[in-house]
């Protein structure tokens, strides 16, 4: 006898998330790829830029004029440092998202297994399948929230990397940046350039915290499903042996 597993469609946007859950190996590979790209950018772009900048004495590199190789290398290094760390964290976040999705898939399969087992039991003794726990929506929401925060941090990094950061660093350090006075456009840019990492780095970790919370809740769903199945079987056993 083949048991028909009922289709339990989640409301939007959770239906979309559940539809994507089996794609977790690809999400994990994508996350790994993001981190690999960060490594390659570090090796082939950031590291050479920093090497170029530090290839001469402090006096020479700071006196270099806008448009010179030193200033351009400094701009490249600072621009990359504004968005590559956020990009790397999106990669890590995708890895954690893949784990959450894999756990969600396991929980879904466990539920399917529950339907199959109960479907094979005579109707008068058949245990009633419990409804999908609300925690499923919480872990999906938490994981989604985590990835959205990491993507938002990346967007902030990219916006800074194409606006304030290159605008500020594409000046001569000795003749333009160092003499800048309070209230000048350059010092206002320096405010942003020197302060964004102070809140963006912990924000990234907040995104990671949401992803870890998603994994934690997904595990409680799996543990709950396993315990629930044991309880259903025990209930069935007691009814069956009481007759």
């Amino acid at each position, binding site marked *: *006898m083949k048991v028909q597993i009922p289709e339990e469609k989640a409301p939007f946007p959770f239906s979309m998330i559940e539809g994507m859950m089996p794609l977790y190996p690809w999400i994990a590979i994508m996350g790994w790829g993001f981190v690999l790209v960060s490594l390659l950018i570090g090796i082939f772009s950031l590291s050479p830029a920093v090497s170029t900048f530090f290839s001469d004495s402090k006096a020479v590199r700071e006196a270099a004029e806008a448009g010179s190789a030193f200033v351009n290398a400094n701009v490249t290094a600072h621009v990359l440092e504004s968005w590559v760390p956020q990009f790397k964290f999106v990669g890590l976040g995708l890895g954690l998202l893949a784990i959450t999705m894999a756990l969600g898939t396991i929980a879904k399969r466990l539920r399917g297994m529950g339907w199959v*087992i109960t*479907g*094979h*039991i*005579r*109707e008068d*003794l*058949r245990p009633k399948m419990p409804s999908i726990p609300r925690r499923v929506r919480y872990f999906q929401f938490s994981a989604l929230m985590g990835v959205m925060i990491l993507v938002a941090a990346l967007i902030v990094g990219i916006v800074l990397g194409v606006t304030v950061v290159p605008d500020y660093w594409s000046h001569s350090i000795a003749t333009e*940046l*160092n*003499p*800048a*006075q*309070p209230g000048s456009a350059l*010092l*206002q840019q*320096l*405010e942003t*350039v*020197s*302060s964004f990492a*102070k*809140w963006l*780095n*912990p*924000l990234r*970790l*907040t995104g*990671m*915290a949401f992803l*870890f*919370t998603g*994994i*934690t809740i997904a*595990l*409680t769903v*799996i*543990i709950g499903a*396993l*315990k629930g*199945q*044991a*309880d259903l*079987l*025990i209930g*069935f*056993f*007691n009814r*069956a*042996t009481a007759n």
Partner: protein
Amino acid sequence: MENLQGPSKSWQLTVYPIFTVLGWILIGVALLIGLFVLTPTAIDYFGGNAKAVRDSAEAGSAVISQLSTLASTQRWLEPLAFLGVASFMLGIALEFSAIPNILKNRGQVMSICFPQIVQNYAE
């Protein structure tokens, strides 16, 4: 008749929420300090003073105090935030460690129930 019981209560499932909450507290504290202490201090220090003023600041001045805050806070704040990450991971590991016992019990329950399922098989 066999005595059927659910899995015994494991200490890991009692303890893991503490580490999850601790993770949120530590990362939350790091975010709040970053937002409300380090960011305004960095804005004041770099935006409010010319480089010459920053470089020539005397001991005990507000500028030196801001520099000290910026340089020293980061040294413990980042490890604090990562302790939060480690707390989450510990919580997750504890949850995982409870699963084998639950699976073992689930297998035992199933093996005892199986003859009854076969006996009461749905046609």
